[in-house]
């Protein structure tokens, strides 16, 4: 922090408890915010160029390395795009396994964000590492929920990070009866814990409302793996294949990630957007046991993203239990995918929002061109403007208090900078 004439400059470097690296510059003059620049500082890894010329059938293995925490989302959306390009229809069993893999990621990833990154904000602590012994029970329950998702990933997908059983068109291994029973029992054992935590996020008075556009994929079972429609809270209803007509690239010169607008406007994706647009499609058991919390939506309060994630966590458990209890899984022989020339789109909801893949494959089966749009890129403009709102709401407080409010708000967005560069260093100018 330093003073430049009567201007105050604030620099916040290396925002903590998020995925990846980012920084923030804030310029204040006469107690008014003059400029806010949110920079994603995670170095670019040039995946757009790196995937060119690679064999399309192995593409998901490569692109899943864009992000450790939501690698299953990248693998799944990429597989869908490749399958659509070569016109390959997956079996009903593969679709179910894909939904289970994605749900296992939602359980583990939402639990990571809610309990390890955000919960300390609600408890007035810097870190879960600083929780005292009276909070050990809370920690035990948090890790039990996370473990249920992680273990389910291992059963369904081989492992939670960079899954090994999934391929374009199929899963190479299916879970056996004992593994399924164990998974169901573990999911049921943590269900009440999720409801207990939800009360903490619901009871919070954290509030920052933003009148933005919310955008989400809509599918009938809230799994977002089936083909669906892209909708927003202003009434847009778009076929997945036409997403490029609505999403516009916005180059942000100071950030290593490209931003996006939806029909020319800022917008927000993620759990809050999904709850605002899809809540009637939640699992019936979730709707029964979470009615009080679900009634909080639609909401414009950015902090309600945490409550939305908590509800989605229970939905992911409930729908997974139903799929596992009502289906028999057995090894199956499916036709091997045959590469051919074509273009394909894959759209799913990753934990942090809508994930778009487009691939163009040549007749030899190599990728000619690929385009990937991740949730944090889509939220970048909205997130930067919300930082400005946060600073304006807290102006006059000391620097550390403002920094804490900014980080808390940014964590509520649950950004993933590794994805976006394909979080936070704040540079204050004037406080």
């Amino acid at each position, binding site marked *: 922090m330093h003073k430049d004439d009567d201007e105050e400059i604030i620099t916040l470097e*290396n925002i*903590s*408890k998020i*995925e*990846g*690296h980012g920084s923030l510059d804030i310029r204040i003059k006469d107690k008014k915010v003059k400029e806010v620049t949110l920079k994603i500082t*995670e*170095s*670019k*890894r*040039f*995946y757009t*160029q*790196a995937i*060119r010329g690679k064999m399309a059938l192995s593409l998901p293995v*490569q692109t899943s*390395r*864009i*992000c*450790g*925490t939501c*690698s299953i989302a990248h693998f799944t959306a990429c597989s869908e795009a490749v399958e659509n390009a070569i016109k390959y229809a997956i079996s009903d069993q593969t679709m179910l396994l894909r939904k289970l893999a994605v749900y296992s990621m939602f359980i*583990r990833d939402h639990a*990571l964000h809610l309990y*390890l990154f955000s919960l300390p904000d609600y408890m007035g602590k*810097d*870190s*879960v*590492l*600083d929780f005292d012994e009276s909070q*050990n029970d809370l*920690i035990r329950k948090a*890790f*039990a929920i*996370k*473990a249920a998702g*992680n273990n389910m990933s291992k059963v369904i997908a081989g492992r*939670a*990070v*960079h899954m090994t059983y999934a391929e374009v068109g199929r899963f190479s291994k299916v879970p056996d009866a004992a593994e399924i029973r164990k998974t169901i029992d573990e999911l049921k054992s943590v269900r009440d814990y999720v409801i207990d935590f939800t009360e903490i996020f619901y009871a919070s008075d954290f509030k920052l409302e933003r009148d933005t556009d919310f955008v989400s994929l809509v599918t009938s079972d809230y799994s977002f793996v089936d083909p669906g429609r892209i909708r927003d809270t202003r009434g847009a209803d778009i076929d997945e294949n036409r997403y490029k007509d609505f999403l516009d690239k916005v180059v942000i*010169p100071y950030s*290593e990630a490209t931003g996006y607008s939806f029909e020319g406007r800022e917008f927000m994706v993620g759990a809050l957007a999904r709850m605002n647009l899809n809540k009637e499609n939640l699992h019936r058991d979730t709707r029964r046991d979470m009615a009080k919390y679900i009634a909080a939506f639609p909401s414009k309060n950015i902090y309600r993203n945490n409550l939305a994630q908590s509800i989605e966590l229970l939905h992911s458990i409930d729908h997974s239990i139903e799929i596992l209890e009502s289906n028999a899984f057995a090894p199956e022989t499916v036709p091997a995918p045959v590469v051919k020339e074509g273009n394909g789109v894959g759209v799913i909801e990753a934990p942090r929002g809508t994930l778009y893949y487009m691939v163009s494959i040549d007749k030899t089966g190599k990728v000619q061109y690929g385009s990937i749009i991740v949730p944090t890129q889509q939220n970048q403009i909205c997130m930067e403007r919300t930082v400005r709102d946060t600073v304006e709401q807290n102006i006059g407080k000391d620097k550390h208090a403002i920094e804490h409010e900014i*980080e808390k708000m940014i964590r509520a967005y649950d950004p993933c900078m*590794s994805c976006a560069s394909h979080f936070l260093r704040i540079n204050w100018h004037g406080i």
Partner: protein
Amino acid sequence: MAGKKLRIGWFSFTCCEDSTIVWVEMMNENYFKWKDLLDIRHARVLRKINDMAELDVAFVEGAITTESDAKKLIEIRNNSKVLVAIGSCACVAMPAGQRNTFDQETKKEIDFLVKRFRQTDKVRSLKEIVKVDDQVEGCPMDEAAFLRTLDKYLKQFGVVDA
């Protein structure tokens, strides 16, 4: 040796942070045990207030893409008795360093971005910049290999009986 803890830091450079996620997932089973054995001094993924002074072991994930990151890595090295490279990007600079393998035409295409964000011409693994004492390979890191490495240094630093 009662009460002695291993002073560790967990750092991340350019990568997908897959090994960080694996480490945090390993806490599902190990959190309370590690709380007794480890003094986690620096871990941006878990806390805001961090301190890298006088670490016994620094675990470092990711490849090095800028000179400022190279300087940070040297600072970590100077503050730690042992430095362990974690995961493929830290050990061999891949896949984060896939641009090292681009042809001249593709390198030319990305050149303005490499320059704008002050990336170095080549993406480097940790051992190309500092002395690396140990490494845990894998993409993400292998859990069993990490536990063996951690156990080795818990014994070496006298936190648990050899």
